[in-house]
């Protein structure tokens, strides 16, 4: 695609995501959730795709974010917006701190062992939260109601998640194109080799988890408010729904790529909404089947499948040329 085509596509894309809530206001909440799903998939893929470390505990940071923000909103006694954004910043900070502490302890574990260890995280989060009175224990927490006219609340959260998803996407794009991206790819390909070349593997792994936690905690802060009720097990530490979906969406789209998780999130979310609408009663069965189909027929994801079948258009070489150009590479001799 040439530069002009790209530009037109970009303008159309920006127009679509900004115009969507106005064009189809009835779907605004589903659209907001779409961006949340994109955030889930993108942040999961940092470790699961780019670094080869499957984490089943990322939902932990989402839950922390939801609670930290809501508690600050509840207790700060400030204007809603001020309290919310302070809460969100605090959520991000605490998420990162939690990831740094957990990471330095758990990321010494290799691949599968790490994956198993993370399984406990989300469960532990849910257990602790549902037993802790200060944050509402089992009956959950209700963040202060969004002030403002009818419909403004939905608009606010739509654009909040849109902006978060876009910032996340471009932050990752930037990080993946530098030393961080290569380091976590190297860890994925051969961690022993990376160590024998002097790479600070544990540091890179911990940073990767911190980046995930940073965006997930902010997403949690927003999601708690958008949903309007923070249940410890079904919203904050929802390992069986959000926690599993983030893995599936990244794999469906193509893990280890930048666009794969975005694509996977979109397809998964739309499919799921359709199931809920047209397959009432059978939606969980359909979802289960979808998971099997993904794993069996698209083990490398949609993007991986496209690359395998149309290498001349989407293959590695094309990618590399573009990257070479971006790095100021001289033309091929």
């Amino acid at each position: 695609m040439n530069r002009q085509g790209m530009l037109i596509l970009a303008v159309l894309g920006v127009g679509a995501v900004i115009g969507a809530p106005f064009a189809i206001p009835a779907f605004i909440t589903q659209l907001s959730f779409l961006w949340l799903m994109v955030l889930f998939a993108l942040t999961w893929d940092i470790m699961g795709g780019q670094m080869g470390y499957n984490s089943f505990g990322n939902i932990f940071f989402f839950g922390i974010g939801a609670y930290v923000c809501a508690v600050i909103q509840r207790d700060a006694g400030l204007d809603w917006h001020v309290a919310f954004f302070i809460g969100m910043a605090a959520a991000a900070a605490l998420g990162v701190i939690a990831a740094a502490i957990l990471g330095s302890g758990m990321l010494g574990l290799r691949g599968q062992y790490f994956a198993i260890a993370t399984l406990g995280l989300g469960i532990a989060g849910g257990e602790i939260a549902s037993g802790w009175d200060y944050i509402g224990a089992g009956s959950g927490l209700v963040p202060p109601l969004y002030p403002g006219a009818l419909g403004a609340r939905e608009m606010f959260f739509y654009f909040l998640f849109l902006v978060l998803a876009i910032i996340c996407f471009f932050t990752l794009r930037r990080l993946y194109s530098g030393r961080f991206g290569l380091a976590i790819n190297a860890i994925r390909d051969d961690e022993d080799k990376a160590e024998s070349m002097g790479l600070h593997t544990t540091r890179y792994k911990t940073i990767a988890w911190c980046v995930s936690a940073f965006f997930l905690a902010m997403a949690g802060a927003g999601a708690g408010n958008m949903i309007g009720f923070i249940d410890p097990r079904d919203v904050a530490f929802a390992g069986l729904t959000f926690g599993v979906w983030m893995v599936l969406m990244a794999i469906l789209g193509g893990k280890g790529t930048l666009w794969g998780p975005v694509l996977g999130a979109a397809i998964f979310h739309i499919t799921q909404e359709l199931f809920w609408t047209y397959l009432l009663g059978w939606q969980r069965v359909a979802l289960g089947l979808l998971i099997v189909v993904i794993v069996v027929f698209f083990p490398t994801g949609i993007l991986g499948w496209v690359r395998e079948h149309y290498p001349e258009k989407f293959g590695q070489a094309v990618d590399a040329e573009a990257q070479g150009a971006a790095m100021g590479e001289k033309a091929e001799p």
Partner: protein
Amino acid sequence: MSALLEVEGVSKVFGGVIANADITLAVPEGAIVGLIGPNGSGKTTLFSSIVGQHAIDGGSIRYEGSEISRLRVAEIARLGLLRTFQQTRIYGGMDCLKNMLISISHRREGLIDMLSRHSAEQVDEADRHLEFVGLYEKRFLLAGDLSFGQQKLLEFAMALMNGPKLLMLDEPTAGINPTLINGLIDRLKRVNEEIGITLFVIEHNMRVIMDLAQHIYCLAHGELLADGTPDEIRGDNRVIDAYLGAH
């Protein structure tokens, strides 16, 4: 002056198999030292012990005068002591240029460096090393798609990119197209003379190691059998017997 690398009385046992028994040797700074021995004589094991891949069962390993046998792999690598692998290890899912770029030295690396992009100089340097080993045309190919010999060359270039002081190569000519071997010997010598990297080389190809090394150690059954100049080794009956006996 003491040597750059001093191995003293090092032993390593793998559940009953004595892979290295009381090995003592030295690699002086600026030299090219060879390590030979029949299959299974413990050469690779000794390399792994030196770079900290496994704990040793006895003895001492000093690099630049300080004990390194308790340091971890990455810490030793950051001191400028690097090894390549007999079975070659590269990052198969990344292209050759990326393999090179991530192989820069990680000696001083703060958070900012870890999140930064590669400088134009680093890309230039990577290109130069790829050119040096003859892989420049392949720099955007996935490393995993290269032939074994090409991967061997890439691994060598990655090691150069890291700027080591002492480079330990495990059979650098294995799998390399025979017509390219002379060129590789030439490159190894240039790396030693022009960049000043000390080389410690395991090699099965006698012609190669005789041409390359100034001093050669020979292992057999985990023990140090003999050492000397190439001419001394060539004329040593114990070495000849060990090789003939093993085949």
